[in-house]
């Protein structure tokens, strides 16, 4: 009995130590990756390719998600607020919810699923097929050649994607308000623009850039440390999406608290 309890404590302790060690490795990796961003040579072609992949090819999925979210938000808000005769605040609620929270978070989660998984799988495959080892022996630093362009592109593209996502989300709300809920188009638009605040856009951009950093760092970290062949690639991909998503939701609270807490 005592031996079983001791084994249980041992196992928990061992896993806790491993977890703490992994966090330490992750931060060392982040520090190293960021330091390589500022050192020449910069691989502009690789950065551009990443910008196209992240910024351009993510537009459809981000657009669709935020458009329907805006629609749902307008509909739900209207249904709820009708009980208090506050239908006039629908435009404001849609605008604030999307620019402050839904736009950045949904964009972040979509990009984590699309780009984060791709980054992790690509780097993990390179790792298990010795391509990363080969890079190191061919006069190239893998951190600088592989990781830095992904981080730079993610941090640049996410604010752009969030801006586009916010606009499309607000348009989704507008569509429902005008065509289903019979709002006056001019009044709705005026209410939206009147309630638009710089702080919301700044906060959204800060969140977006942070999410870009999180997604690229986490995905590259798990990809870079992948092992065990195909199974390792699968694990790196899954865990990078899960961890990115959790970190996005955690950091959005911290940033909101910093701006509005």
């Amino acid at each position: 009995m005592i031996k079983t309890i001791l084994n249980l404590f041992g196992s928990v302790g061992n896993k806790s130590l491993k977890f703490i060690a992994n966090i330490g490795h992750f931060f060392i990796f982040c520090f190293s990756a960021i330091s390589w961003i500022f050192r020449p040579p910069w691989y502009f072609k690789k950065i551009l390719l990443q910008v196209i992949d992240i910024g351009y090819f993510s537009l459809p999925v981000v657009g669709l998600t935020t458009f329907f979210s805006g629609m749902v938000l307008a509909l739900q808000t209207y249904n709820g607020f009708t009980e208090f005769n506050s239908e006039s605040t629908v435009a404001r609620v849609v605008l604030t919810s999307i620019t402050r929270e839904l736009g950045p978070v949904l964009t972040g989660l979509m990009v984590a699923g699309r780009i984060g998984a791709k980054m992790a799988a690509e780097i993990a495959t390179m790792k298990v097929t010795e391509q990363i080892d080969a890079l190191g022996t061919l006069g190239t630093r893998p951190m600088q050649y592989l990781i830095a362009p992904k981080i730079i592109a993610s941090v640049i593209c996410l604010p752009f994607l969030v801006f586009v996502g916010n606009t499309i989300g607000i348009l989704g709300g507008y569509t429902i308000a005008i065509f289903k809920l019979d709002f006056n188009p001019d009044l709705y638009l005026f209410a939206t623009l009147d309630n638009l605040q710089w702080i919301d856009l700044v906060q959204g951009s800060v969140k977006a850039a942070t999410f870009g950093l999180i997604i690229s760092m986490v995905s590259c970290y798990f990809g870079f440390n992948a092992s065990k062949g195909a199974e390792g690639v699968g694990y790196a991909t899954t865990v990078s999406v899960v961890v990115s998503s959790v970190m996005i939701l955690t950091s959005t609270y911290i940033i909101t608290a910093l701006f509005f807490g």
Partner: protein
Amino acid sequence: MKKRKIKNIILDVKDLKKTFGNNIILNNINFNLLEGESLAIIGASGSGKSVLLKNIIGLLEPDTGSIKINSTEMVNLPRRDKENLLLKLGITFQHGALFDSLKIWENIIFKIQNQQKISKIDGRKLALSIIKRLSLKPEILDLFPSEISGGMQKRVAIARAICGNPKILLFDEPTSGLDPVTGSVIDKLIITAVKTIGASAITITHDMASVSRIADKVILIDKKTISWSGTPKEMLVSKNLKIKEFIKSTNPKLFS
């Protein structure tokens, strides 16, 4: 190849020891490679051959011991100096390790392109000249690695390794997973590559036929250390039980 003039020591490994945790992988490894010499390293799977190679190319750091390339100590060398030293080596990995996102010609000139600015036209020309030297088809230049066979990928990996005329070529199981005919083609390619650029070579292999074709000297890694060394001819008549067993199991005809 075997008549090549033997010169100075280009790689010197002394008292190398490597452990992973409490597990000793390599212990008391001593050997050297002469200029123009072709050395084959044989040993059972998991005996530490690839670990030894990774120590030589700086991907792993030995616990103790010394690795000198051209009299320069590799162990604990600052990163920048190590990178410069590594440029003198040409390495092919077990599965080719070609970069999936680059075309074949871009793979071949990758090292040169990182060292100096080279135009697309010049780069392609350089890649073409290298694959011609290795008698490969120019049509593959604009393909991606996924569009060519495994055997062809290994040949391209050899082309990439010799680009920039390195002083030492290292081949990690170049014929593994290939049919005997393709394996023989790879061996010829290795001999041609070594001859063409006048480099020394280290080949890690299980293939005894390959050893007899490409090596001037053979070392056997067994029980974490070098348990036998000699020429391929000496290997065939060796009384060492491990060597006998190894030859018998991999190529009985060669032994008889």
